């Protein structure tokens, strides 16, 4: 009876995951889909606690510990998730993903110890050993990788490249696989492979760090999506280990869906996954090739810009990664309001991958109460640039780079961009002249119509707003 109910709960859980994910991919049903999956998960968790029995029919114990863990995790998880700013959402996903990876790795450690201590040797159970160790490796890589991604998005860790980074990474991968095969076949570690298991753990942890370290901060969402599908696979290995259907369904589903999503995100940037992973390489070469063709640029002062904007008919704001980093969405909305009061029409041009976070700009500006009908999609706004007086580019770079249209040798060639160069005046706000994540120079900055406005987006906008208020 109990077993039947457990199976039924797992069945409902599995269906809720599949259906939830399906609903999450349509804007109208997304929120309900998330809720369905959460309900299915809760059902599967409680069914496991009360109804799970091992092969000998013995149920689970340590209820106090289990519930204490569940309660502590729920409270901390809810607080973090509720308190976090909208701008910090991507790193939160990364953090929670890392927790899942660590969870999978710990399960593997305990089960491996358990297997060895109960007198079962690796030679008796090669399949089980492989599954446990794969769960360990993938879970650990996902954990340390996600923590680095979290640190990068949070601004604690900078992009770093070791000399020969890619060679070291490939070398580590070879070591990991050799160790894995060695332990399973009994060549390494023999009958007591505990030490080798810890060595595998340590090297996997190191690989996770070095895998994410050189990848540019702006590419982190792609990396997080990839690590997300890794954790899915680790969960699936756990499911195989315990003959647990709901873990298998959920894990494999996320593993495959996560992989597709990663590829889709890369496609939206017109790049390949490989190009993102070894991105730092390609970027440097690109920068070297086109860097020489730069030229001179001119700067504009905040007071000049205030006057220019105030006497324009219409202004289009192009938000990008810099706006998200500076958390300038509220100040940006303020600028829009003050211009609007003075009879200047303001619109926002949203590139589909602005900030490399698909949909991120929409979410950010919605948080600052920017009205939805002021946000214009790329196809809609592009024909309007030729009648626009001033375009203000806030921390966006590659999505307005004309090289995507004109230069077939550019890494971003072919990516659809916002045609800001059609406007009468183009103002670009950046922190410095440093090229964007891909390391490619932007010819737009050297156009005679373009003026640069250096500084943090939030600071600059604050000054601009007070300047406009004082002269209006």
């Amino acid at each position, binding site marked *: 009876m109990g077993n039947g109910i457990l199976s039924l709960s797992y069945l409902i859980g599995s269906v809720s995951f599949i259906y939830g994910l399906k609903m999450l991919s349509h804007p109208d049903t997304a929120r309900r889909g998330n809720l369905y999956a959460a309900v299915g998960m809760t059902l599967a968790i409680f069914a496991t606690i009360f109804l799970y029995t091992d092969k000998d029919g013995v149920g689970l114990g340590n209820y106090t510990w289990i519930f204490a863990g569940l309660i502590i995790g729920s409270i901390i998880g809810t607080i973090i998730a509720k308190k976090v700013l909208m701008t910090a959402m991507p790193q939160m996903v990364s953090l929670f993903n890392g927790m899942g990876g660590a969870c999978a790795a710990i399960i593997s450690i305990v089960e491996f110890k358990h297997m060895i201590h109960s007198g079962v040797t690796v030679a008796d159970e090669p399949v089980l050993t492989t599954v446990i160790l794969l769960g360990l490796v993938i879970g650990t890589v996902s954990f340390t990788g996600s923590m680095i991604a979290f640190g990068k998005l949070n601004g604690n860790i900078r992009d770093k490249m070791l000399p020969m980074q890619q060679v070291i990474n490939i070398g580590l991968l070879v070591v990991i696989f050799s160790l894995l095969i060695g332990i399973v076949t009994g060549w390494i570690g023999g009958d007591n492979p505990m030490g080798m298991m810890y060595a595998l753990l340590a090297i996997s942890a190191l690989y996770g760090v070095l895998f994410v370290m050189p990848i540019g901060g702006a590419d982190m969402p792609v990396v997080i999506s990839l690590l997300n599908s890794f954790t899915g696979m680790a969960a699936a290995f756990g499911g195989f280990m315990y003959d647990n259907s709901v873990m298998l369904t959920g894990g494999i589903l996320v593993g495959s869906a996560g992989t597709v999503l990663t590829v889709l995100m890369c496609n939206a940037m017109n790049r390949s996954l490989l190009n993102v992973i070894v991105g730092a390489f390609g970027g440097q070469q690109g920068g070297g090739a086109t860097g020489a063709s730069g030229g001179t640029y001119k700067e504009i002062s905040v007071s000049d810009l205030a006057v220019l904007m105030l006497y324009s008919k219409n202004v289009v704001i192009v938000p990008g990664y810099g706006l998200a980093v500076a958390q300038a969405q509220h100040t940006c909305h303020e600028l829009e309001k003050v211009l609007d009061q003075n009879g200047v029409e303001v619109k926002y041009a949203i590139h589909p991958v602005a900030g490399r976070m698909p949909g991120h700009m929409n979410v950010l500006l*919605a948080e600052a109460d920017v009205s939805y009908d002021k946000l214009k999609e790329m196809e809609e706004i592009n024909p309007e640039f030729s009648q626009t007086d001033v375009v203000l580019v806030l921390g966006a770079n590659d999505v307005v780079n004309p090289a995507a249209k004109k230069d077939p040798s550019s890494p971003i060639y072919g990516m659809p961009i916002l045609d800001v160069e059609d406007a009468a005046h183009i103002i670009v706000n950046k922190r410095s002249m440093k090229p964007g994540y891909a390391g490619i120079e932007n010819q737009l900055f050297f156009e005679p119509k373009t003026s640069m406005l250096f500084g943090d987006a939030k600071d600059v906008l604050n000054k601009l707003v007070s300047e406009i208020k004082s002269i209006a």
Partner: protein
Amino acid sequence: MEAIFSFITEHYNYILLLILMVILGFEVISHVPSVLHTPLMSGANAIHGVVIIGAIIVMGQAESDNYLALILGFLAVILGTLNVVGGFVVTDRMLEMFKKKKKN
């Protein structure tokens, strides 16, 4: 060769499940608008928190004198719960923004 065949026979159901889920994952995701990429990633992130079930089994089977298993199991339950609860709540907050945006 013999070993491979017996492996396939023994784990036939799982292999079938694996193939079906991979295909399903591809199908479900392949036509999603780019504005939903981030919430979808976050939702999928919460779903792989199902690994918590493994943590609960580890915890529930730990003998009361095996402190290492108890501590690691307890840690795993907390981490898994963080993944599940945090994941679903963050996704819900993101989607809430989308909803508000639509109404305006």
